[in-house]
């Protein structure tokens, strides 16, 4: 009953897409309107925290090497930390806005982990290519939440932050079990699936 790895990527992609849509709406309407209904302020931080929590079973059931386990564990921890910090700020338990630096930290840790744990080259197969692209996107994308912390009312950076989640979702949806990328498929990758 355990889903193949690509299905897990697609489920997480849906979570990323929902977070991106909520962040995009928040960037468009502003914090004051977004937080008029208290429950709404909790949506994307809760999603982030829950996705971090769900990374633990992914780590336990879907990793086949130490480096994979460490990478997935670091994602779980950094996503939970970023989600929890945002929840604390929304709830009023945390007051210092620099707790929001946990989000660019999560981006950097996740991006580094995804790059380090991908042992194959860019054009080995599609998932290897996507790992490289996602890793560098996360590292480059860390600039958006970082600047958003320093300039919280600047819509450009907040929109960029939101769109980074949407783009990451699209990349995760593109993941396949064993598939070529731009016509390249290493013979060592095995037979193409679907």
């Amino acid at each position, binding site marked *: 009953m355990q889903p193949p790895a690509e299905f897990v990527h697609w489920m997480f992609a849906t979570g990323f897409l929902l977070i991106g849509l909520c962040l995009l709406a928040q960037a468009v309407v502003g914090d004051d*309107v977004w937080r008029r209904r208290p429950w709404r302020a909790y949506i994307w931080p809760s999603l982030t925290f829950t996705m971090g929590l769900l990374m633990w079973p992914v780590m336990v059931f879907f990793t086949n090497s130490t480096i994979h386990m460490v990478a997935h564990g670091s994602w779980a921890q950094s996503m939970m930390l970023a989600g929890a910090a945002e929840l604390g700020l929304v709830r009023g338990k945390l007051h210092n806005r620099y707790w929001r630096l946990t989000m660019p930290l999560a981006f950097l840790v996740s991006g580094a982990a995804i790059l380090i744990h991908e042992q194959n080259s860019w054009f080995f197969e599609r998932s290897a290519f996507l790992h490289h692209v996602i890793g560098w996107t996360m590292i480059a994308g860390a600039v958006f939440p970082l600047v958003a912390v320093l300039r919280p009312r600047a819509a450009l950076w907040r929109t960029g932050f939101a769109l980074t989640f949407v783009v990451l979702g699209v990349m995760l949806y593109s993941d396949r079990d064993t598939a070529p990328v731009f016509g390249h498929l290493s013979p060592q990758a095995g037979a193409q699936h679907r």
Partner: protein
Amino acid sequence: MSTQLLSERAAVQRRSARTRVVSALGPATMLGGVVWAFLQPYRITLLHPHGQGFWWLAIEPPLLVILAGVVFAVLVAPGVIEDLETAEDE
């Protein structure tokens, strides 16, 4: 026309644009899923369900994209638009 009236009109237009953007987010996402389904119909396993396992039938990426759009459009966007319009009237 006074500068104040012009700036107020510009502000109203900008706010209306914000409402339109929020209204469009859900449908645009749904449209993305539909376009993907047309481009890669083999991703919709429900169209040829014979011999497929549970996960291939339960998790179909274009349908997940449409679902995300529906969830946002039904559960999140209406309240945001209502609050935005209230804020604009104040």
